């Protein structure tokens, strides 16, 4: 990946002083998983360009475990776009190669760092959701933004454009330090991939780099969210921060549906929530928890507990004596374990909760003897042909006193502008039912297994469409 910085400030060669890199030499530094080469393709008094070429060693990337983990697609670990795109590796290289410039110091020309310079920068190539997104992030900072989209495969025009852009920024007068800080923060935000190098110190450094301009940026929330999203994996303090401010954790429906959002691997059942806005999911969980409170259930099953958001609510209900929370994904359970701080729970609380792996498609004697079962946004992740087995497991064998099933309401989908007709809200949804379909299914299940059922809208109701989600309450 390549970054060039050009100035027409007079004398343009001042850029060399500012960057603390001699324009007449090629300089090479070792950086994470590769090398950063700094050189000047042009260096005249009129115009001077510094280039930072980052060569990532793909073999070393794997061996140092700095590359993608390849979850969901094993080969991704070995074959990926990291050697070609601007990513957190570039931010790290910037910080190392242009350390003094980023800190705004210049021993030889102390006045230069604070001088506003005409600057141009080119990034080849920058991953982004859209050209518009690049505009939105860099525009407010005073740049003239020029983007060049690249096709995914020129031999297959119907595949359209890739998520890679050549980005050209122009600014009439800006401190070099600011340009570098903008790039340093916004590159990983745009790349939206894990920052493999970020530790706690790095995360704070980043917040520091954005400290001056980020609070005034209209997209500050998006930038912070994207940034913190990945630092959460390595920084428990930030994670705790996140879990308390849940409205920072999820993307909007637009982002999750854009083809560029490839960061969420398709293998997380409980994480199937990215498709909805968070407030809807909260609403859903609050509603289910409220039903369980109303019913006074003592022993509760949470089938498909994901990271434990419903469990957290259920633990707060004094009448709930025991919760058996199951998920089919081991990873989700580990996440739940962390998010709920199970290891540190006081013994009495700990006894009220069992987290375990389970599947709604296998008979499981552990499921018997519960007052209520919550099955929140689970059935739409099963192939329709397997629902009969789900029905056997839950309604014929486990037979909880009450079963609460929620699923998206397909009637409501036309309200989502970004959702093409017939498209589902989440790539792992196997079906999305209309209110009539869900009601028919629920009625059949209830009749076959001796339950009464009522189906209700869940969420704000739109005339003629119903609510975004729907809830079936089965009672024996």
């Amino acid at each position, binding site marked *: *990946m*390549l970054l*060039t910085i050009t100035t027409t400030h007079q004398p343009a060669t001042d850029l060399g002083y500012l960057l603390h890199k001699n324009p*007449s*030499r*090629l300089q090479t530094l070792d950086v994470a998983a590769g090398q950063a*080469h700094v*050189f*000047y*393709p*042009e*260096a005249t008094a009129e115009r001077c360009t510094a*280039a930072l*070429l980052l*060569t990532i060693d*793909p*073999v070393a990337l794997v061996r140092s475990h700095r590359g993608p983990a*390849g979850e969901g*697609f*094993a*080969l*991704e670990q*070995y*074959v*990926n*776009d990291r*050697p*070609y*795109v601007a990513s957190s590796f570039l931010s790290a290289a910037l910080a190392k190669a242009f350390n003094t410039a980023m800190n705004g110091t210049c021993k030889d020309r102390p006045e230069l760092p604070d001088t506003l310079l005409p600057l141009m920068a080119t990034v*080849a*190539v920058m991953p982004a959701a859209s050209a518009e997104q690049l505009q939105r992030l860099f525009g407010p900072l005073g740049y003239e933004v020029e983007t060049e989209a*690249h*096709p*995914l*495969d020129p*031999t*297959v025009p119907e595949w359209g454009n*890739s998520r*890679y852009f*050549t980005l050209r920024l122009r600014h009439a007068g800006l401190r070099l330090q600011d340009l570098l800080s903008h790039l340093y923060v916004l590159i990983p935000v745009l790349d939206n991939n894990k920052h493999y190098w970020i530790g706690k110190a790095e995360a704070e450094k980043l917040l520091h780099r954005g400290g001056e301009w980020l609070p005034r940026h209209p997209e500050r929330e998006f930038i912070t969210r994207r940034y913190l999203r990945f630092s959460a994996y390595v920084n428990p303090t930030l994670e705790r921060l996140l879990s308390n401010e849940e409205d920072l954790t999820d993307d909007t429906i637009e982002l999750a549906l854009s083809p560029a959002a490839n960061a969420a691997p398709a*293998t997380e*059942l409980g994480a199937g929530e990215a498709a909805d806005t968070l407030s809807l999911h909260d609403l859903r969980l609050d509603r289910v928890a409220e039903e369980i409170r109303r019913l006074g259930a003592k022993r509760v099953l949470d089938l498909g507990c994901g990271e434990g958001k419903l469990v957290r609510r259920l633990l707060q209900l004094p009448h709930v004596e025991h919760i058996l929370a199951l998920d*089919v*994904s081991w990873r989700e359970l580990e996440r739940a374990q962390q998010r709920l701080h199970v290891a540190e729970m006081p013994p009495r609380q700990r006894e009220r909760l069992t987290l375990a*792996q*389970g*599947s709604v*498609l*296998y*008979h*499981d*004697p552990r499921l018997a003897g519960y007052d209520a079962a919550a099955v929140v946004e689970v059935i739409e*992740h*099963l*192939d329709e*042909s397997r629902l009969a*087995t789900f029905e*056997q*497991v839950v309604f014929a064998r486990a037979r909880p006193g009450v079963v609460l099933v929620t699923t998206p309401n397909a009637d409501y989908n036309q309200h989502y502008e970004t959702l093409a007709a017939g498209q589902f809200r989440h790539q*792992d949804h196997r079906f999305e039912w209309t209110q009539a379909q869900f009601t028919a299914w629920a009625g059949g299940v209830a009749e076959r297994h001796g339950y009464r059922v009522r189906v209700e809208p869940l969420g704000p109701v739109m005339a003629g469409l119903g609510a975004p989600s729907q809830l079936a309450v089965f009672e024996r």
Partner: protein
Amino acid sequence: MPLTSLKLPELSLVLLIGSSGAGKSTFARRLFQATEIVSSDQCRALVADDENDQSATPEAFALLHYLVGLRLKRGLLTVVDATNVQPEARKTLVQLARDYHVLPTAIILDVPDRVAEDRNRARAERQHLGRHVVPQQRQQLRRSLKTLRQEGFRHVYHLHGPEEVDAVQTIIRDPLYSNRKADTGPFDIIGDVHGCYHELVALLTQMGYGVHAELAQDTRDLGVRVTAPAGRRALFLGDLVDRGPASPQVLRLVMSMVQGGQALCVPGNHDIKLLRYLNGKQVAEKHGFAETVAQLATESETFKSQVRQFLDGLVSHYVLDGGKLVVAHAGMREEMQGRGSGAVRAFALFGETTGEIDEFGLPVRYNWASEYRGRATVVYGHTPVPEPEWLNNTIDIDTGCVFGGRLTALRYPERELVAVPAAQVYCEPVRPLRPAEVAADVAQLTAQQQHDDLLDIRDVTGKQMIKTRLLPSVTIREENAAAALEVMSRFALNPKWLLYLPPTMSPSETSALPDLLEHPAEAFDYFRRQGLERVVCEEKHMGSRVVVVLARDENAARRRFGVVGEGPGKCYTRTGRNFFTEAALEAAFLTRLQEALTAADFWERFQTDWLCLDAELLPWSAKAQELIKSQYAAVAAAATAALPEAVAVLSQASSRGLDGVEALLARTSARQTAAEHYAAAYRRYCWPVESLADLRLAPFHLLATEGRTYFDKDHAWHMETLRGICRHDEALLRATPYRVVNLHQITDVEAATQWWADLTAAGGEGMVVKPYDFIPGGRQHLVQPALKCRGREYLRIIYGPDYLLPGNLERLRERAVKAKRNLALREFALGVEGLERFVAGAPLREVHQCVFGVLALESEAVDPRL
């Protein structure tokens, strides 16, 4: 004369009873294996570091009971070395014996206090014992003597004084009566007769037995002579009497056969009721007993006495044929087989009931067979059924002859059913033979198929050890099973379709040739080292691996796979996922394949109405389009967009004459070229799929048809057989080019190597080298079922655009194929096992266990590039 030997049942819980110092430990060590003894002193030492720490007694006994329980569960004779003088101490142990259906035995070491006290004084660690201890223990012992039988001890040996204790030299371990493992049959197992004499004679005759009446010579002679077909014996499942017209004749015939060694017999509940009557007990004349009483009225007292003795001698159930066959009147749970207890006997007679009473006033029977997991085949009767049906390796062959049904026999080991119809309805059943109505489509499934609708999570989770024909045991680690549970639950098809998952395939060892990672030479070397003469080289198609399970029509699919309303077949990926997402395309594809099979006369030729194929479905982009776009095309797009920009800037810098820029430019240009080759490599395997006309199926193994697999056929046979089918639809089906190579013929080897070079130069993925025989025999170790040799161009999409650049290939050569090969063998063994179980008619969970195992092993961390 003191006893020199004691007889015990081979599986019993032996309690040594005696005061401290009575010599129990010495006695136990002298007569039992060290591992059979569980001692309270030792348990105390284990939990307290001190054999005499009395404060640890509760924990010590908790441990003792735990150990005893585990041993009994596993069917091991166990000796409890503790004083056992108090009834409450014995009670827990007797309960353990009952829980595991083991007979409790007491051996009392009744030694004078003086002797015991002297012994204790001689032992330093017993110095602390109070003076009152030994007399008190002995007193408790004396009090226990009267109650031991009542407490449940079947065998009680009372050894008086040290002399009698020392006189015992051996313990004789009696096999349980039910243990007839050495008896291998063959048997003709006959269900409930209930006095249906004519039907019984007809059935026996049909099976080749000769039944001759003759004059009674003396009182022991029952007046019937039976000749059995060579080597065969009848095996009666009990309920010989009641309800029917001729119970005494049936008894006479069966008793005569048992006496003559032509039959074995286990008792039924009706037989035992008759025994109680003959023993003078009050018996209610219900359920057809009145008829028996009336029929017996004209019989002689001698005969009645013979019947009494016969019934009294019947053993609740038999374990036969090395443990592979269990017979009992009403069935037998796995943990009760070959054990002895009141509960075992009751189960054998009455089976399992829920305690509820149904609308006909009869006890509600619980179908124990639905939870049966045992290895032994269980044949039983007791509950009349319209049709005998296998369920979890058990079968009920009571077809209600006396109610106007049939009298059925199961021939073992052939597993054939033979039946004769009842001449008439002798008795109206209280409860209709067919139970509650079920939905019409479900009713057409067998009991096993209905049962298989729901698999049990306990059969797949946790650490699994799977016995296979090819490898003695394949271990599935718990975390791999956890990963497989997720994949299976979220993505896989209805498990009834999943007969087989293909094993992973290792590449050949890394080539030493410049510019190459793989070359056929290493594959040939491997098979040569394995002592193979011939291999088969098959072109490797670059598509998606699929398994096709296809029936002739939907009826056949329902009959054989037990699926309703899911079409005649499925085409699924290596992870059990449906290949097709569009139902219409799937249907069209399967129909075309059915037509080709019909045109090839396949169904008749192979005497089957279904088949299972291992194949490659092309193009790669048909299934992998999203992956190709998001991964392969994306990488190429990023590279081809980024690198020209870098080359331009470097060229500009180079023209300024900067030192070192030349080399960087050269390398960046090389990467640009590599990126273009990379893009060309993946594009070769992609073409748009708009309809069936764009799909190609290249089958390479015919895995199974009705009743058999084809792992015994060589690969040339597979290739030719499949070519014969492919001929009938060349637009859809592609016969795989192959060649047979003699590894010792240099010309053969060279020609095959050239073939590979040509294939890969033309952009082909490469080839697969397989042993000539599917499973080469006569070897100690399993040989890799296949090795792949992939081409230089193809490997770009596996190892990345830059893999051939200087500095990269050298490092990439360090790859280890051993783990991958190990995995391939285990998955192969599981795949073969699963399919063999399926064609043998095993319950789904036994097939699913293997398929699940392959999926679990696939989550082992191995280099995905191999």
